[in-house]
């Protein structure tokens, strides 16, 4: 049984393992690891929790624990968070509590956590009351930036492992994030049986016992880290802060170290997980603050806040997240430009890892080129724009940041440097002015049962990957390390890996710099007319196959029209692939009398709605999804 081996791994690292759900033999195994049963009067702290006002001065730093939950995607962290909230009375215990901390529609629909959420829990342990601040973090590789931000506000983490799936690639990645931050790590095995909440109590005990209290003194001057922020339409910026010293109250005048601007605190309090106003916040605590920040750029994540008369040394802050996937975003109609602009501004406040650059295109008009951490990140951003801001956008084919070493002295002068970064394929410089092209590389880790090794190696080979390492981590499972060109994994690698391994393989990656590559620009033509928005950069060896694949994709996604459409891929003036979309000859519904009108009108209305989602390129109607679908490969 490989499951036993993971426990051994953890025990070797001398971390405590808590069993969430109860199989007796597991309990026996680990009682020796120091987990003691403690009686708690649950009713007492529940009644305490519902008290209207909370006196936070009762919670000095040594009664506070700040922790987050990290895990591989879908290993049940949001479910554990739900149970913890229920047990401490932060939410009522009902059947309906599913992903309480996942507030976004996109999170509930996709069953993932996108945005880290904070909840303060009151917990009574050995006769003492504790304030436990829980931060639920996203699991997907694209969102690791949120994970590292959350970790900065914590002293410990719960590292969840699904009992059935064991350690996965992101378990390893998240472990190292926490390990490098020198946080206490409490491994939790989840889903041994149904989601009953058995032994969740012991998780809370371990949080108190094993995670150190924040090292923050109330006697120091006020000093807080902005570790997250949200934009509220009516109240402006709501900043999530962790207090590293002192206290803050309503009416205090505080300063943003980043901008040097002064604000008055209008409201502050705890997140439980809804906002719960209090009079003050004290050293070691985590909560929210509203201080009249109206501009989305005023609440920089990683910024330090202090009292006007008591300046402090700034906290280290964060490395800005590096965008690895770029795509154009354009309004469906240019009249929607201002609305989309403000929606993007607001959404990027809640997600500072997105980079924004203005851009424009012949067919799509004025828009932006946005940078994302990964493709899921981009899809989620797009979905949030549509759902939360009712903005309909066209997303162009995503690309990675290529580099070129210029050889033309004129161009070097123009750009101010020899090396340039290209985030828009349309601006890819010609070979004649370039001495070398470079592409971004990543170091990928794949964990999978050994039955899939052959298939995975073939997939990686097709993606121009170079194997660096391969080890059995137990008697069935293999960990493979590959050096990938980033553009080969950006669009559909993860989905393919998942489907070819029946969901068993997991994947994570980190940046591995740039490498020289033989890159060329490939144009896509519709009826002989190049479509700038579909231009891509490809490796010369892959040009023919990706050109063919793109033409096939376009043929599938562009509906038949009243005239024939030639879809071509071209390198320079040379056409390397072609597909033809035949013209409609007849599509008139044969029968339409009095009883058919209602149905006919309904059908036409649907077509009209579909038509509004089309983009006219030349005289060809192109569905807006085509711009992104075109890059997905079948392999």
């Amino acid at each position: 049984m490989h499951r036993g081996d993971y426990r051994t791994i953890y025990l070797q690292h001398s971390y405590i393992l808590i069993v969430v759900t109860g199989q007796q033999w597991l309990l026996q195994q680990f009682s020796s690891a120091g987990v003691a049963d403690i009686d708690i009067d649950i009713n007492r702290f529940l009644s305490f929790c519902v008290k209207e006002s909370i006196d936070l001065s009762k919670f000095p730093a040594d009664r506070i624990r700040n922790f987050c939950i990290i895990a591989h995607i879908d290993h049940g962290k949001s479910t554990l968070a739900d149970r913890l909230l229920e047990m401490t009375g932060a939410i009522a215990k009902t059947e309906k509590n599913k992903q309480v901390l996942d507030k976004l529609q996109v999170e509930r629909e996709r069953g993932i956590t996108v945005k880290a959420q904070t909840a303060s829990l009151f917990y009574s342990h050995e006769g003492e009351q504790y304030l436990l601040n829980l931060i639920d973090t996203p699991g997907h590789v694209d969102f690791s930036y949120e994970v590292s931000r959350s970790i900065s506000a914590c002293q410990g983490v719960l590292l969840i492992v699904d009992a059935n799936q064991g350690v996965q690639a992101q378990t390893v990645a998240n472990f190292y994030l926490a390990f490098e931050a020198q946080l206490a790590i409490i491994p939790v095995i989840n889903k041994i049986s149904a989601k009953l909440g058995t032994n969740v109590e012991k998780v809370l005990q371990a949080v108190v016992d094993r995670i150190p209290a924040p090292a923050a003194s109330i006697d120091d001057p006020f000093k807080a880290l902005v570790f997250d922020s949200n934009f509220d339409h009516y109240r402006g910026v709501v900043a999530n802060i962790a207090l590293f010293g002192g206290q803050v109250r309503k009416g205090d005048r505080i300063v943003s170290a980043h901008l040097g601007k002064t604000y008055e605190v209008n409201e502050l309090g705890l997140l439980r997980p809804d906002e719960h106003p209090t009079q003050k916040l004290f050293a070691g605590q985590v909560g929210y603050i509203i201080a009249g920040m109206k501009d989305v750029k005023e609440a920089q994540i990683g910024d330090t806040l202090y009292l006007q008369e008591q300046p402090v040394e700034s906290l280290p802050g964060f490395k800005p997240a590096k965008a690895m996937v770029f795509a154009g975003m354009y309004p469906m109609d240019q009249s929607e430009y201002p609305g989309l602009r403000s929606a993007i501004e607001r959404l990027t406040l809640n997600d500072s890892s997105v980079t924004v650059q203005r851009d424009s295109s012949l067919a799509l008009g004025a828009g932006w080129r946005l940078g994302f951490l990964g493709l899921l990140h981009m899809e989620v951003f797009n979905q949030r724009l549509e759902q939360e801001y009712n903005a309909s956008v066209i997303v162009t084919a995503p690309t990675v940041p290529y580099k070129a070493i210029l050889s033309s002295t004129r161009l070097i002068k123009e750009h101010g440097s020899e090396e340039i970064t290209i985030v828009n394929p349309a601006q890819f410089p010609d070979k004649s002015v370039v001495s070398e092209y470079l592409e971004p590389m990543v170091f990928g880790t794949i964990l999978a049962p050994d039955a899939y090794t052959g298939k995975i190696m073939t997939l990686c080979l097709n993606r121009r990957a170079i194997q660096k390492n391969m080890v059995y981590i137990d008697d069935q499972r293999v960990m493979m390390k590959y050096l990938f060109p980033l553009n080969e994994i950006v669009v559909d690698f993860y989905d393919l890996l998942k489907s070819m391994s029946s969901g068993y393989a997991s994947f994570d990656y980190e940046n591995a710099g740039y490498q020289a590559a033989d890159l060329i620009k490939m144009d896509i033509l519709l009826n002989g007319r190049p479509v700038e928005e579909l231009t891509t950069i490809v490796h010369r060896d892959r040009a023919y196959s990706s050109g063919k694949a793109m033409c096939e994709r376009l043929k599938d996604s562009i509906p038949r029209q009243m005239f024939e459409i030639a879809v071509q891929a071209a390198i320079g003036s040379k056409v390397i692939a072609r597909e033809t979309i035949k013209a409609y000859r007849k599509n008139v519904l044969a029968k339409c009398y009095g009883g058919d009108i209602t149905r006919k009108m309904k059908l036409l209305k649907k077509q009209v709605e579909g038509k509004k989602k089309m983009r006219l390129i030349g005289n060809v109607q192109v569905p807006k999804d085509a711009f992104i679908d075109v890059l997905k490969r079948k392999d």
Partner: protein
Amino acid sequence: MISRTLHALTRALSPGLRRLSHVSSGGPIEDGSDSAHLTGHASLYVHWPYCLRRCSYCNFNKYISRENNDVMMTECLRRETDALLQLSQVSCVTSVFFGGGTPSLAHPLTIAAVLETVAGRVSLSDEAEVTLEVNPTPEGKSRLEEFCVAGVNRFSIGVQSLQDEDLKILGRDHSSHQALQTIEEARRLRPGRVSVDVMFGRPEQSVESWESELSELLKVCDDHVSLYQLTLERGTQLFRRVQGGEASVPAEDVTAEMYQRARTTLHQHGFLQYEVSNFARHNAVSHHNMSYWRGRQYIGVGPGAHGRFVPLGEGGVDREARTQTLEPDVWIREVQQRGHGTRRRIRLGHLELLEEVLVMGMRMTEGINHKHWQMFSPQLGLREVFGTSAEVREFLQSGRLVLDDRGLRCSWDGLAVLDSMLPALLVELERETSRKLQSDEQRERSDPR
């Protein structure tokens, strides 16, 4: 017992039975420029929901009746006709169409009773077209004469195919021989007023077999032909068989070819296409169907029937889309309880009405003339709506659409791809009407009187 009741009914009706012996073919079909007629006139559709069997391709509202309930149905159709005529307050019914289902299964006296009810409440000219859909079975054929006596003056015969194999696949209950006999009998009774329905795109059908079948049909048919492409509807037996690979239907390009060849062949035989699927010679068009395409009011009676009229009787001012209750048993109960079985009423706004006028009107080869459009849209002419759009201009330039002094219409080629043009036309209509509305509001604001 039932037949005795019907005899009693006959006696009660016979003095008032309309005599329609002198029917002229192609009666006066007014252009309808008189907008007063918009609410004062209506056509009447009567739905007979029963069939003897289920055709393999049909997902229509029809029921295989277990028992004979002619008397009850007759009474309910009469009551609902009466109630809806009263509600609409029309003064004149311009045409009547008995569809189904299989309305030729209804007793001729049922038909007579409904017509009697109409004539008793509003003006129903002797010239008015009264069509009955007929299944070409021996039973159907034998009753044609009685239907004529009841007041029917036009027959629409569901021939569908002249291939016995295909009729079996389609699940029809007649043979090609019976179909030919029925056509002959109908032509004898109502010369120049018989239509035949044929279907193409049938399983395993080829362009050549379709052409020869059509020429066979042209030898025997009267002055009106309706062509329908077989559409695979979800939930039908044929749909399942095609899905399961047991049967296959011709590809899109093949059915397109069948349609074009049929149009040409019919044209060569003197049949003028006047709508997407309808062809007539000697001006034997279906006046009833024309009134749908011209956006006229119609009243739908019977289970699942649709209607479009202004309920003036209860103070309504806007046209409503009305649907009667679908299931015959429930419909009967509702009619007995409250006089009609209207299940759904949706008020049509100005734009929605124009959308229907556009979608229906463009199906006719004559299209929509300026005067006709103006009747529905006095503020915004066809040129104003469609004259500026780039996409519409492309349709015009490519010769698929015509916008001239007569009005807006499809060209011969354009008609076959009408459904590809309609979304663009609808987008334009919506844009221009809302623009007009805005500019009117602005003018009102700047000129507060």
